[in-house]
Each structure stands twice: as C-alpha cells, then as structure tokens.
C-alpha cells in the first residue's frame, strides 16, 4: 500500500503544476483585454491620470453610446455603427466570395477531365505563394486605375485573388470516395445535380469551417483597407481604430473610454464566432494544411 500512495502524491503535485501553467497562460491571454474593458467603465479623466486600475465605474453604457454613434470624421460618417456595418460587409463578403469561387474552381479541377488542367492548376495555386502584402503597391495602382477606390468591391475582390479556399476544397473533394460519384452517375445525376444534391451537402461542415476562418481573416484585414479606403464612410473597425486611438494622443482629454470600447467592438464578433463554433473552426484550420 505504501508504494501506492507515493506515486499518487507525486501525480497530484504534477496536476497542480499543470493547472498553474494553464491558469497563468489563460491570464496572459485574457488580462490585457479585461484591462480594455475596465477602462471603458470609468471616466476619461481618471483614465488619463491613473490609467488602468481595478476600479469598476459606471461609464460603460455612456462609452458604448459614444463609441457606436459619435462621429469625428472631417467629411464623413465614421461612427462605430457605420464601421461595424462596413466590417461585417467586408468579413461576410470576403468569406462568401472566397467560398463560392473556391468551391467552383475546386469542383472543376477535381471532377472534370479537362485540357489544360495542369496549367489551370498552376495558374491558380501559384497564388498561394505570394501574400498580398508583397504586391500591395501595384495592386493599389490597379484598383485605382479601375476606379475601385473607396468601394466595397475594390475592398473585397482583390483580397479574394488567392487560392487558399480552392486548395482547401480541392483537398476535401479528393478525400470523398469516388464510388459516390459513380453511384450518382448510375443514379442518373449529371455534374450540376451531383454538385447540388451531393457535394454541397457533404461539404457543409467544411463550408462552415472555411466560412469562420475567412470571416475572421476578412474582418481583421488592416493594410489593404488602410490603402483602399480614404472616405471615412468606408472605414472598417479595424482600419478606423488606429486613427481614433491616435487622435487621442496630445489632446487635452483623450477619450480612452470610447476608443477602448471601439477596440472591444472590433474584437467581439470574430471572437464570438471562433469561440462558439470552436470545433468547426479548429477542424477547418488544422485540416487546411494537409
């Protein structure tokens, strides 16, 4: 019996250690954001003097209203609400566009016998090699030439010009047993029917996972919106936040409450999506590299 108690004790100690590491890690991730939240509950005057503290004030709703409805653009409307809507359009439009185009192209590549199939494959998949950031200036010039500055399609379409989703769906389609296509052919389903009746329903989980990843990716875009949108009406939260945070510097009473609230509003939708659809999101993320 004595031999039994000692390893059990040691086990307990290691469990405590494991939990301590995880608690410290969780705190490391979450405390900075709690700090943002705390600052939105107190008056800006206090924030300016003492910075973040443990005090919980009563300014939360006040700051929320300011963040959502106050505009301080020179010419346009950059209320939090406007920016939130723009962010949603960018996130949803980007995710939807990416998935629709990606599925169509992947379907063509995987399920059809085609001339130039290899060429098409390479044309599409070379785009995985170069992120937008390295060709940012010429991309800007082209969007400018096409008169697409300060438009949603100018914002969204160039971001879609890469094959991440196509690659993802190609991998997934290839993992679907080919007997299924054969059975469908014998059942009299043509290519369109097969796509709608069988492939899309089968891909539901994958589509959901891709949608979450792409939504977060689109929502969080910064450099591209910074360049393409100069009208304040077109600002997204992530693009507008720096402007507002920085405009505080040097003013007599920086509006920490409002700008932090905007930061929280910018964080919240993608975080909620990721947390609530965690299992899909993780599946999509970890399977995209295979």
């Amino acid at each position, binding site marked *: 019996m004595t031999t039994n108690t000692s390893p059990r004790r040691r086990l307990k100690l290691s469990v405590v250690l494991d939990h301590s590491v995880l608690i410290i890690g969780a705190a490391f991730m979450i405390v900075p954001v709690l700090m943002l939240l705390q600052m939105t509950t107190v008056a800006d005057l206090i924030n300016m003097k003492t910075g973040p503290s443990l005090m919980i004030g009563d300014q939360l709703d006040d700051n929320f209203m300011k963040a959502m409805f106050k505009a301080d653009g020179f010419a346009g409307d950059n209320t939090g609400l406007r920016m939130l809507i723009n962010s949603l359009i960018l996130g949803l439009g980007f995710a939807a566009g990416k998935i629709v185009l990606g599925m169509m192209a992947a379907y063509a590549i995987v399920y059809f016998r085609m001339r130039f199939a290899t060429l098409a494959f390479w044309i599409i998949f070379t785009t995985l090699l170069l992120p937008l950031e390295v060709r940012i200036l010429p991309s800007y010039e082209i969007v400018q030439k096409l008169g697409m500055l300060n438009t949603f399609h100018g914002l969204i379409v160039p971001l879609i010009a890469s094959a991440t989703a196509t690659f993802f769906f190609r991998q997934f389609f290839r993992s679907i047993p080919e007997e*299924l296509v054969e*059975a469908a052919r014998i*059942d009299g*389903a043509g290519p369109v029917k097969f796509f709608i009746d069988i492939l899309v329903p*089968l891909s539901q989980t994958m589509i959901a996972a891709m949608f979450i990843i792409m939504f977060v990716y689109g929502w969080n875009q910064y450099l591209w919106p910074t360049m393409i949108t100069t009208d304040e009406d077109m600002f997204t939260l992530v693009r507008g936040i720096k402007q507002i945070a920085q405009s505080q510097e040097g003013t007599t009473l920086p509006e920490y409450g409002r700008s932090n609230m905007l930061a929280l509003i910018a964080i919240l939708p993608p975080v909620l999506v990721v947390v609530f659809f965690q299992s899909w999101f993780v599946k999509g993320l970890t399977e995209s590299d295979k």
Partner: protein
Amino acid sequence: MAQVTLSQISKVYPNGAKAVKPASFDIPDGEFVVLVGPSGCGKSSMLRMIAGLEDISTGDLHIGERRVNDLDPADRDIAMVFQNYALYPHMTVRKNIGYGLQNRKIAKAEINRKVAEASALLNLDDYLDRKPSQLSGGQRQRVAMGRAIVRDPELFLFDEPLSNLDAKLRNQMRIEIKALQRRLGVTAVYVTHDQVEAMTMADRIIVMNAGNIEQIGTPFEVYNRPATTFVASFMGAPPMNLMEGTITDGQVRIGDLVVAQNLDHPAGPVTVGIRPEDIIPDAAGQMKIEVSLVEELGAHRLLHGTLGGHPLSVYVSKDNEVRPGVLHVSLKQNAVSLFGKDTGARLS
C-alpha cells in the same frame, strides 16, 4: 432482364497499360456470373466497362438487344453495388434508395411504393428514416442492395460488395444476395477476389489473371478440371498441389514414384496437380509423405510435408489421427491433373 454479350472487349489505359485483353463471352438471361481473380487482374475494369464507368477501348457490349458502348451509366438499365456501399451519407435510407428514381422523374407516389416494396424485401422498414452512419455494416449493405433493386434493372453489378464485412456477416449476406438474385431472376455480374465467394455464389465462374480470361465454367468444372495451373492454384484453399513430373511410356512419375498410368500423352516433363483432399492415408499405400506440421482445423486436419522433396499439403478428416513423421498414403481415382510444363495449360 436480359442477356449480356461481350465481343472482343478490351481495356487499354492512356498510359498503354492493357488492363483487359480482348475477351468475349455471353451471359444468359438470369445467370449469376462471378468474375474472380487476384487484385490487378482486370476484373474490376471489366465490370466498370460493363457499368459504363470506364470507356470500352475496343469491342462491343450488348445488354439485351441494345449496343450500350456509348450510353451513359444511367441509361444502361443497370444497378451497381459498390465495395464501400457508396451510400450518400447526408441522405436518409429512404432518400438513398429513391434518389435514382427521383432523377428519372418518376412520380412521388410510385417512388414511395417501390421504396416500401424494397425495404420490406430487405427488412429495412425500421431504418428508413435513419442516416447511413446510424446503420451497421450489414444494414448498409442491404440499403445498397435496395438502391439497386428499386431501379428494376436488367443487370445487377456487384463490385466486391462483401469485402468490408466481418466473416460471419459475409457468410450470411452471401446467402441473402444469392437468394435475392434467384427470386428476382435478374442477370448478375459479381466481382470478387475471394474464391470461396465465387464457388458458393456463382452459376458460372470466370477466372481472370493479368488481363486474360483463364477459364469460364461452373464452380464444379473450375474446381475439378482447372484449365490452367493458375486456376488450379487460385481456386481452393489450400490450393492444388503442383509438382514437377515426367511422362515416360504413358506413366506419370514424380521422382521415382508412379502417380498415374495408362496415358496416351507423349513423353516429356509435365506439371502434376493433385488436390490435397484427394490424397488419403493408407497404410498399404506406396506413397510416403514426410509430414512436418499438422494444423488442427476441427472438422479436418491439414498436413504440411514433402513428397520426394516437393512441398505438399494433405487434407484429411478429423478421424485420421496423424502425427509428424512418415505417412503412407494413396490417391483417389482420377486425382491427377496434368498441365503442360511450359504452357501451364491442362492436358486433357
């Protein structure tokens, strides 16, 4: 229901690989034909050409009166059961079975009637609203059958449908499939690599190897009069013993031992084939086998040993107590099959 006629059908892949060399045979109406052979022998390509899932390189294929070479699979009036069942995972059993009919623009009521009929036949009534993932292997197999039945096809095609099932279920499904085919009277082509399945289910067996048809015959013919050494060694477990022998003066010898007499074959080397169960322990027998291992199989014993230096196996009933060592045996009547040493073809 129809007769199927293959004339000079072959399959050559774009990379030049000859999967099926030109083959011709007829399948009479209502017959159950099994294509059997090792993997890569061309049996699946043959089936897929009949189904229309692969193009026919040369030759003509007729189902009934129609030449179907250029018809889509859906227009050939066939039904196919796949190895992994290929059920649509997102559809209920009911939808899975009815999907093909729905695509043929058949009236809803008619579809419902046919699905109900098939499910009654296959004991699937309680599962119609389940998804395939909620079914056992045997039930999935039956759904796949149901999907085939409702089409009222002229021809059933089976692509190794039982290979994903465990041994017990496989035996049961074997009987069910065969009984169903009998009852419906539909012509069937069944592909398998399992020679037991072939023997038990087929009206006729087609043995294939390396793109060639080695033999076409009833299970009895294929087993007892194998046309080639390949068939002899492929059909039957344990396989036929094949040994080097010679013919001199109408006598077949293995080493010094005479195993058959009074033949009118010319002298020369031959391959001698003897089924393990055709060798019987016989204290007066002049053949001596050096037994090295006895496998206990319950109803039978399988002896492994050598005869004049050639490895060989003997299948004896449980009544024969045998231990490793020397065993005297004799042969049953007509136990010896002879094959050309170089051609491997049976010498009649």
